[in-house]
């Protein structure tokens, strides 16, 4: 879809729709929309920048967790730290399913059950994947588009 040809208003609408869809799917909750609505305060690029930051950070944390689990002796404290961090990010941005997966992981950590941690990690990875595509497409919608700036300002 050629976003460049769309006017600001349409683009904005498109974005809102996307967000609504995601919310309907349950991938994100209201916070996501709320984050989007914060763009006024922080400038036009706020939302656009936030998503990739979130995705990158989440990816990093997931990798760290995977590494930690692979150790022969799992450091649960470290795992917990990663998990809580991811949970915080997910919660802040509104990625509710990912957050729930983290909750499950933290329970597994509490029980110090490696198996359950592995399962939980798989869940997390899965949720991350589900989230990644729609979010990245939102960024594409907004990012490179010059009119985005105007849209953002509006």
């Amino acid at each position, binding site marked *: 879809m050629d976003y460049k040809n769309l006017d600001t208003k349409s683009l904005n609408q498109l974005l809102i729709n996307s967000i609504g869809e995601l919310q309907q799917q349950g991938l994100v909750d209201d916070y996501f929309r709320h984050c989007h609505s914060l763009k006024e305060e922080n400038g036009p690029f706020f939302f656009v920048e936030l998503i990739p930051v979130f995705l990158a950070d989440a990816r990093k944390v997931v990798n760290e967790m995977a590494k930690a689990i692979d150790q022969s002796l799992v450091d649960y404290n470290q795992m917990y730290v990663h998990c809580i*961090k991811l*949970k915080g990010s997910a919660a802040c941005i509104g990625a509710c399913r990912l957050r729930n997966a983290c909750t499950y992981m933290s329970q597994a950590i509490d029980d110090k059950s490696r198996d359950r941690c592995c399962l939980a990690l798989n869940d997390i990875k899965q949720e991350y994947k589900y989230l990644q595509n729609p979010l990245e497409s939102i960024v594409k919608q907004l990012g490179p588009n010059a009119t985005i700036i105007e849209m953002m300002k509006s």
Partner: protein
Amino acid sequence: MVVEEIRGKSGGENGNYDNFPVGMRVLAVDDDPTCLRLLETLLRKCQYHVTVKSQAREALQILRENKDRFDLVISDVHMPDMDGFKLLELVGLEMDLPVIMLSANSDPKLVMKGVTHGACDYLVKPIRIEELRNIWQHVIRRKKFDSGKQNKCTDQINNCQASGQGQMSLMTGTVDQNGKFNRKRKDDDDESEDNGDENEDPATQKKPRVVWSIELHRKFVAAVNQLGIETEAVPKRILDMMNVEGLTRENVASHLQKYRLYLKRISSVATQQANMAAALGIKDSPFVRMSSLDRLGDFRNLAGSGRFANTALSPYSANGMLGRLNSPGGVNLHNLTSSALIQPNHAQNLSNSMSNAGKFHPVITPGSQNGSLFQGSLEMDQLQKNKCTTEITNFNSMDDSRMFTAASAFTNTGEAIGSSSNYLNGDPNNLMMLHGNSQQALSGGFGNQSSLNMASFNAESLNGGVGQSSNFLDHGKFNETWQTIQLPKVQSNTLFSAEHLQDQLPLNTVRDNNSSNSPHLQNNPLDISSTTMASRPLEDSRGEIQFQEGLVGQNSDTIFGSFDFNIPANGNLPPSSKSLDQSTGIFNRKMEMVVNSRLPGGASTLMQRNEIEQSNTDSRRSNENFLLEQAKLQGGFVSQSYGSLDDLVNAVVKREQDGNISDGNFGFDDYSFGPGI
């Protein structure tokens, strides 16, 4: 990712406080970039001036560069370079700023930990903007308590467009407490001496604080005793009697308030300890018992208690204690009851004097009437220094929520910790403030600071720790966890006479790690008739401190320097019921107050160590005073664990530096209860 944005302040260097909370200067610290960004945005939306840092160390650095640059700090709990609680303690100690903790984890234990470490609030991610709209109240509250003047910020408060009644997320008790406080403050014009908006800009205006030095406090106590704590000891008369230049009636008033609270606390602690002792049937065992602590919720009840004007012992402190207790040390919180205050007449301390042999294992008291006992696991290593025997004192139902303390029996070996030098009275009965943990934050000085006035510490018991005492005053920072130690009233005549104690919470001071406090008191048989709550009367803001004439000893500087309760005759130890108010909201202080009553037999001061120290690396050090800071404590009692007396002293000093201590600024962040061993 380091993001730092400093927004220009509108209206001047310190922000435009005419429209407070607009322009409130917030420092946000979180290693998670997503959250940090969002937080920043939300805060801006609330019209605050926001600075963000992703590393705790950087945050500390900019805070240290200019202590007046910020009004409030929001920090994540889990950060890679420094534990959020540690940062919390440091900020509280060094800068005395309100700190809000942030986490994705809403586990009550963690919340409690935050409370005990002195956080004034705990928010759970994801954060809603509504929650952020109310955070300004923490600034106001602290200012108010700090300044010691009532209604200073009334105008501000009145002008503030509070969006809501403050949704304190987890500290419900605190909220209520705060609510009460705020209302009280607003409404109670009588209390405010210096009414007026002298301080529109809380951040910039620093009122000269009265430092309650040991000498000063001694005079105060003497005057109070002379006049009679219950009736005649009114600030005006005390002031006249003290005849000190530059001291205002307000200073005296707030100091008196704290003192009363302290006494109350002591008595209450003593009662609890006694109960505990009875329940546990431990005699002469080296463990520290925790006196019942009030719960946060209970704190509210305190409000009801006539005795304290403000619930000095806010449940907050109680929570603090709980929190601390929950720390790995394996603290067991037994039911906490709100009444922290001990009925004055009940004070009976009995406590087993326990020598602080090593680790204190948390003693769980059977839900005594007075509240639950906290057990803190005393950090042994720290305790090592102090050998304190803890006695369990009985606490009468304490209204005070704070309560706590492991009962440590200090034998009154006459070793005043710190003795000699620090004790004002030279009485061994001084309270020993044990500092629970000596955090790194604590400057080394602390170690020796504890002015433990353990009146009844055996000389040997106080090794090291006590000897140092002394510098309560010196240290400006309180890193210590104060634990109030209940001095078991070993001897009847000792410090407290049961009847004298009026709701004093016997604070059991638990040791402090480096502090000297660990006086180990010889084990006194629990059945000491008189409870010696020689808790130092921390400057409790509230509570009536029944200060018996005999009481006295206090190192004024520090919070309660050491009370010398040597009032053999009366045995009344001024229970420093200093409720642990954490005035400044730094709850991380565990105050260990060792109330030493001068028990000839061996007053026992509880020294407890805080396990917290172990568990919490960040022993909160609140710069506040230790023992009871109700003021800040919103609802909880101030449990401040002072690792050592030094810390306590420092805390006191700090408090004083920060503001008028008299203002009841003693904030106990948390009580560290040394676990009974």
